[in-house]
């Protein structure tokens, strides 16, 4: 066997050289497999008896000598040489090599893609984009439900908001109504309004409102107080009293513009 193999090796070397030269002169790109295939066909190598290390060594050496830079070709040739070896070992183990092997086909695909940047993706469970969406078979035409509990709660929340808004609007309307009714005050009402007791009640009421509002705001617009339920005149009178007692300052940037109430510095309300 030894001499046989040796002989074949020398043949192989010769064959390789010949084929690589052919490859070089040939305009057509030739795959490594074709080189091996041709060699096997012409009997220059025995596909069932390849010394893979020797073949590749010599092959690589030749490529370097030829300054061939087609690494892809080299890679392929190496791969197919390995594949031949695999076939050989399969035969030795009694495996039928002519049976289709799906895993091998997949392996081939991966190899041919090896120059692509594939990072570390495990392709085993990857399917194509066309297959990724599967139609569910749990859909039903007429499900009994029209409304779920969640939707019911949502509706309630929604009406809660609407309700709040309406309430706020009504409040504003009411205060507007009060303001308008001021025009209809009788002389008696006006005298009553000027009464000390009435004024003191208004002042303490406004003071309380302001205390609350100053907790969150440092500058309060006059209208905010009016929304609290008192008419504009009473509020204004009360504010004048508070200002004169140095509890607050009244600020207006321009005549006829909005009137603001701020806390008197060094003083709490």
């Amino acid at each position, binding site marked *: 066997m030894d001499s046989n193999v040796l002989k074949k090796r020398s043949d192989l070397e010769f064959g390789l050289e010949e084929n690589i030269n052919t490859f070089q002169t040939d305009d057509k790109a030739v795959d490594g497999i074709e080189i091996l295939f041709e060699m096997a066909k012409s009997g220059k190598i025995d596909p069932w008896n390849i010394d893979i290390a020797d073949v590749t060594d010599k092959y690589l050496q030749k490529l370097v000598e030829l300054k061939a830079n087609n690494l892809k070709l080299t890679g392929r040739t190496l791969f197919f040489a390995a594949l031949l070896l695999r076939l050989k070992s399969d035969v030795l183990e009694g495996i039928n090599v002519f049976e289709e092997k799906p895993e091998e086909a997949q392996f081939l695909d991966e190899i041919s893609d090896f120059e692509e940047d594939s990072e570390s993706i495990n392709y085993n469970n990857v399917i194509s984009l066309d297959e990724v969406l599967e139609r569910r078979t749990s859909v039903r035409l007429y499900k009994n439900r*029209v409304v779920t509990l969640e*939707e019911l709660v949502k509706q309630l929340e929604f*009406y*809660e908001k*609407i*309700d709040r808004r309406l309430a706020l609007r009504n409040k504003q309307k009411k205060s507007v109504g009060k303001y308008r009714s001021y025009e209809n005050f009788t002389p008696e009402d006006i005298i009553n309004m000027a009464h000390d007791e009435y004024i003191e009640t208004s002042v303490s009421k406004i003071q309380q409102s302001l205390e609350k509002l100053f907790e969150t705001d440092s500058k309060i617009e006059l209208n905010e107080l009016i929304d609290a339920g008192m008419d504009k005149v009473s509020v204004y009178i009360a504010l004048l009293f508070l200002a004169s007692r140095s509890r607050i300052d009244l600020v207006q940037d321009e005549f006829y513009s909005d009137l603001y109430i701020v806390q008197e510095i060094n003083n709490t309300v």
Partner: protein
Amino acid sequence: MTLKCRIEAALFVIGKAVTVEEIAEIVKAKPEEVESELLDLLMDYSSRESALEIDDENGYIIQVREEYKDIVEKLIPVELKPPVLRTLSVIALKEPLRQSSLKELRGATAYDHIAELLEKGLITRKKDKNGRSFILKTTPKFAEYFKLKGDTKALAKILDLNKKTSKTIVENEETEGFSGE
């Protein structure tokens, strides 16, 4: 791939009572064959220990057995269309609510909704003390639906909203649209 199974698949997908003829058209078989297979299927369902059954009263349908209806009710609290639901929401929020006030808030169609809600046992309608107008209230059954599914969080949230100042709520409403329905 038996005809019986094809019929079963069709019944499952349709989800409402259908006639033998309708099934026959879907599974492309003769009505006589379909009927015989349907009976077989019906027997299968009734003989096995299952929560499902095939009802054949007004057409054929796969449905949950009466014994397990509580689960259905839990998951499907009420079969109410959105406008009726909205009316119910208003009643729940403002109860006790005068029928006339509801009409103001929801329009004249609210009367139909009241009838439906009364029929489903979700609200009551009673004359007020003076006997002049109807007062609407939700029932314990309504409250039950709310407690179910352990959705107490949502309920607590609603109650909290009640307490909070109106300012923030109104503001939110301006920015986010209502996505229900």
